């Protein structure tokens, strides 16, 4: 992996969003950058212009001790053959973030899934209706405070 390519990207990102970039790591030819939630959309837009044209995944993680959700955008550059992962943190109480369907239309289904499993609201996503679950009345099941065992006992093994 050419390090100068990574340095080039680092310079381009940090020169424009100096304060919003919380950390910028390169590991095993991957870029992992942590960004403040406000600047997330613009940084992704810049990364897309820098050649990361493929969005692989949008994933969520529940850090319940910090009271935050982490959203990770997994990007891939076909030309540079570099993977970039952008991570943002949003509060668990009001999990609202701007949708990126205007940058990658394929993000729609990923955001819809994250909305269903974590309850994160993606503003601007045209369809956040339930994807896998039907008639779900509990809190979103991938949240750490959702007690799967208790739910299963009540739902399936009760009298």
């Amino acid at each position, binding site marked *: 992996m050419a390090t100068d390519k990574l340095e080039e990207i680092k310079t381009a990102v940090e020169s424009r969003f100096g304060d919003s970039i919380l950390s910028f790591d390169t590991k095993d030819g991957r870029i992992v950058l942590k960004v403040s939630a406000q600047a997330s959309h613009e940084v992704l837009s810049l990364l897309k212009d820098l050649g990361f044209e493929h969005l692989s995944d949008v994933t969520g993680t529940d850090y319940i001790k910090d009271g935050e959700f982490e959203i990770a955008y997994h990007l891939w550059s076909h030309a540079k053959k570099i993977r970039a992962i952008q991570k943002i943190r949003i509060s668990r109480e009001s999990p609202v973030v701007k949708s990126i369907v205007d940058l990658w239309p394929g993000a729609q289904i990923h955001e819809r899934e994250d909305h269903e499993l974590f309850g994160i609201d993606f503003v601007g996503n045209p369809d956040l209706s339930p994807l896998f*679950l039907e008639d779900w009345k509990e809190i979103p099941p991938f949240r750490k405070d959702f007690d799967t065992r208790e739910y299963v006992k009540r739902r399936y093994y009760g009298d």
Partner: protein
Amino acid sequence: MSKLLPRPIRSKGDAAANSLWVINYFTACGFMELLPWVGSGYDMERFGILAVATPRHADVLIVAGYVTEKAVSRIKRIYDQMASPKYVMALGSCPMTGGMYWDSYSTVKRIDKYIPVDLWVLGCPPKPENIGHGIVMAMNAIKGGFGGH
């Protein structure tokens, strides 16, 4: 020589048992073990078993693998479209007890709470031999007059 001649059909059950048409609902590994029967290795067609494209042509519904909450409504819909007499075969531990998904929030634990099941085949997943054993048991039961639903 007489063994090579076609056997006369003795009863309605005999005819039904030798022409079981199957609609499959595959969700998981159960189907991987059923595949040898579709191919020439175990060759289900020598028993007159055919895989059909629509539930309206099918006599047997095979549920192979775990069933999610969302899938169970589809399975019910397939089952309702089948013409009587119809039979249901469930493959593996998952439709029986939930199997390894016994504490999953999204899979149903017992498929027979939703549709009647006539034959359970044990295994996680069941081996092709177990499935063949089940098929022969089902054929014998139908020959013996078991009418399904």
